[in-house]
């Protein structure tokens, strides 16, 4: 049985493709976008999250940890990420859920069992399943198995991808995917490297390839203040997208702070400390600019 690692299955997902959907979040991503609001999606292995607001200070995790990764100094618990092997023993004994092991290995049939629970809602709304991440293409066998299982059950599928994967992998996956939600972030290669950790060459090439053989691709453009909202970048995104065959829709995704707490819980630094949300004028201007290229633009997922 094919297995993979996921970090969440979200029901009543209404911003990741048409209708009412279930989004399955696969863990692991080759990119490290500064604005990533799912930082727990980046590492491919299970990780520990600590919700200090939930901690009741019982100290059970201290006793349980085999590696001495948790220590107590004063009233506060200290956590040493270096020592932690993410064995999850502390999470098991943590009744309040303050220590949570993020990421679990699951079989295709386990995922399908959850996915199939909401078929009645997909049928009613024209919804389905979205495989997101992280980067779902990082687990191609698992993803392909999931997609094939969905097809067997006539469940509509969407794959939300950064496009950063081997072209052959993408092409193979595309055969079983009903809709792609394909991220385009920054057109300038250097800036792309700076803000996401990787070059955009492969991403752009893959998109072109994909557009030649797949008819349902929505571009997702995250509008990040001071990073992607530069008019020049927006224009290039519009231009590039419009040049591709068969891509009609761009979804402008708005930046929100919701992910900030997660960095803290993961003991990671949040790269975008001092950034505010985009004002409506900037959003409107971005949408208008993209529309000039004959694209159908939607604000939000």
């Amino acid at each position: 049985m094919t297995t993979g690692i996921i970090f969440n299955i979200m029901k009543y997902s209404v911003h990741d493709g048409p209708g009412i959907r279930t989004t399955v979040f696969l863990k692991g991503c080759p990119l490290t976008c500064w604005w990533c609001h799912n930082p727990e999606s980046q590492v491919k292995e299970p990780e520990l999250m600590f919700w200090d607001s939930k901690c009741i200070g019982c100290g059970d995790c201290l006793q349980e940890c085999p590696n001495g990764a948790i220590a107590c100094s004063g009233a506060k618990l200290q956590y040493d990420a270096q020592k932690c092997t993410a064995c999850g023993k502390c999470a098991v004994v943590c009744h309040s859920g303050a220590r949570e092991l993020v990421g679990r290995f699951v079989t295709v049939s386990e995922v399908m069992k959850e996915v199939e629970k909401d078929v009645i809602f997909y049928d009613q709304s024209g919804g389905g399943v979205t495989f997101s991440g992280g980067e779902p293409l990082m687990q191609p066998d698992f993803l392909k198995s999931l997609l094939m299982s969905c097809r067997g059950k006539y469940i509509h599928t969407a794959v939300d991808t950064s496009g950063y994967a081997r072209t052959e992998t993408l092409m193979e996956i595309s055969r079983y995917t009903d809709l792609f939600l394909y991220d385009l972030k920054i057109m300038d290669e250097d800036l792309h490297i700076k803000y996401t950790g990787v070059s955009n060459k492969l991403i752009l090439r893959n998109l072109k390839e994909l557009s030649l053989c797949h008819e349902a691709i929505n571009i997702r453009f995250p509008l990040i203040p001071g990073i992607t909202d530069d008019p020049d970048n927006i224009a290039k995104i519009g231009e590039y997208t419009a040049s591709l065959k068969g891509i009609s829709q761009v979804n402008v995704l708005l930046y929100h702070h919701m992910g900030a707490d997660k960095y803290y819980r993961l003991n990671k630094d949040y790269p975008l400390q001092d950034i505010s949300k985009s004002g409506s004028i900037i959003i409107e201007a971005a949408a208008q600019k993209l529309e000039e290229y004959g694209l159908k633009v939607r604000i939000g997922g």
Partner: protein
Amino acid sequence: MNERVTKLRQQSLDAVPYISTERAELLTRFYQEDKTTSLPVKRALSFKYILEHKEIVINDGELIVGERGPAPKATYTYPEVCCHTQQDLEILDTREKIPFKVSEEAKAVYSKEIEPYWKGRTMRELIFTHMTEEWKDAYEAGIFTEFMEQRAPGHTVLDDKIYRRGFVDFIEDIEKSLANIDYLHDPQAYNKQQELQAMKICAEAIITFANRHSQKAAEMAKQESDCKRKSELQKIADVCAHVPAHAPRDLWEALQSYWFVHLGVIIELNPWDAFCPGRLDQHMYPFYKKGLEEGTLTAEDARELLQCFWIKFNNHPAPPKVGVTAAESGTYTDFANINNGGLKPDGSDGVNDLTYIILDVIDEMRLLQPSSNIQLSKKNPDAFLKRACRIIRKGWGQPSIFNADMIVKELLNQGKTVEDARNGGASGCVETGAFGKEAYILTGYFNLVKVLEITLNNGLDPRTGKIIGLRTGDPREFKSFEELFEAYKKQLKYFIDIKMRGNNIIERLYAQYLPVPFLSILIDDCIKKGKDYNDGGARYNTNYIQGVGIGSWTDSMAAISYHVFEQKTLTMDDLLEALEKNFVGSEKVRQLLLNKTPKYGNDDDYADEFLKLIYNAFYQEVNGRPNTKGGVYRINLLPTTCHVYFGSVIGATPDGRRNWEPLSEGMSPVQGADRKGPTAVIKSASKIDQVLTGGTLLNQKFTPKILEGEEGINNLAHLVRSYFKLDGHHIQFNVIDKETLMAAQAEPDKYRDLIVRVAGYSDYFCDLSKALQDEIIARTEHQSF
């Protein structure tokens, strides 16, 4: 809304509810002098006396006329049911929530005239003297409530009869029925004769009452200098001279006819759920269509008339309640719940043009009363559902949504005819009924969780230290979950028996001492049978016991099964000790129960199996038992505000709930326990066979953001359609974020107009008790990023 409606609406909003002693005084005067021996006739004559002597009110600018008391929100009392003491009046006057102003004059009238006459003669006293010690123990412990101790049985809705025929025609029916009495062979002949005589007196009285309005309007017209108002008053005089004596000829008369009937019902007694026109769009459509065709009415006229009609409901708060009854139903709302859409009697789509106008009226009026709902059938167009969703999105809890196809199924399952079923609908909060043909009496809330607490304490009520249940054994000795559940079922039967024994006596007391001949004219087949509504005169007679706390019960039992009997993470002793100490010193146990336990509302079969278990046990214990009117008992799942009261008498529970906190409401999951979104809640809730009930109530809370745009509306509509495909009965939404509610709690003055969905109705947030406000804030907020 035009200037007239704006003014009338504001007048209604500004009016402060106060106690009017008008009815109490007239009734007492009548009773002191009257020597009639037959109770139905006595009741009818007292009704007539009140209608002949009460002040007639036509408010400035009104088109639909008639008030219960002498002014908007002047609220009657019903001393023959429950005579308020000076202390009660003081409480009503000064309590923080749902107060009624009581003037010094009113207090004096009560102490001089009302109390001296009625003390020792009220239904409430009669009821309590007839109840056993076991009943009183259970009542005081909060095992159940008793609906009829301060208000009369009502719980019924009108069909289309008054729009086809008038009271003159009903009098003919009554006379025919009188002529058919078989005095030689029918032992009930005398009773029938008296009852029918009483109905006739009431029918004549309501015509007199309408005529008094006609005369008053004509007099006012004479005095009126403004031409437009003068002609309106003349029209009112004509309308009131014609209805309800005769079948209405136009929309105005149809609405006015209903309103007189409504007033008749709520002046005769203080029945639960006031009264309700039911399928208003269906009933009014022929008049609307005719008016348009003849050119005598425009859509704007219809809108204005309906808006004026709406205001009349809002002018009439529920009669004042005290004690447990105030706790179980702490609201001014009197539960008239107008139905829209659904099916026609032939089974076809019931949505018409007027349906949409009524939805506009609901939207624009934004009033607590009347409550409103849509009955959604698979045959109804999506446009209808989406129009309702757009109102729901505004966040004040109306209209609620019922599954019309399911209501038909429920009624058919109860043995009603297809036509009666399709003409039925939902009333009160969520109760299913055959409109115009059924007495479907809610007899009291039943505390499913308190019975569990008693079971876990081997018959003892830990709050009082009194043994009020059966000695079913120390749960520490139980070897399996099944043993515990068997003990629970014994306790359940024991308390249901006590409740029903009480019910069956109370039902007879009302049949014997407080017949309602006026209401009996309106509900088939009271005239035909010569039998009172309170005595089984209706075609269908159903009694309900409303289970409360099913979510809390489910999570509690899932926790015991999972941790004590399966995983053995806790011993029964550990658990019971933690509960006894309200988790003080055992917060870890509480966290385990809260976070590491399967919970109802997450589409998790493990937890949801316990929902089925309690649902089936409650159903089997109650359903089908006979009442005293030839009908049977059934169950439904709704709480009004009783989940707060019931929680306030229960210590800590195995679901991690602390002492005295509210229980779950309706069939909604425990507040905050549903963590997988609304589709999971819907799936969980649909695992019980709701067709067996007479109504279930599911509340969901959404942040406004998730319902933004056309897509938000579409997704909401899809959720509803999906739940109904799964045979859900009712769903309703609060669309408001936690921050707003918390701000309103902190600064109530700034949020006086904030309306939220409570259970089967909406209410001003600031009028709710702190406990109920906290409960609503704690409900899971479904959102999405």
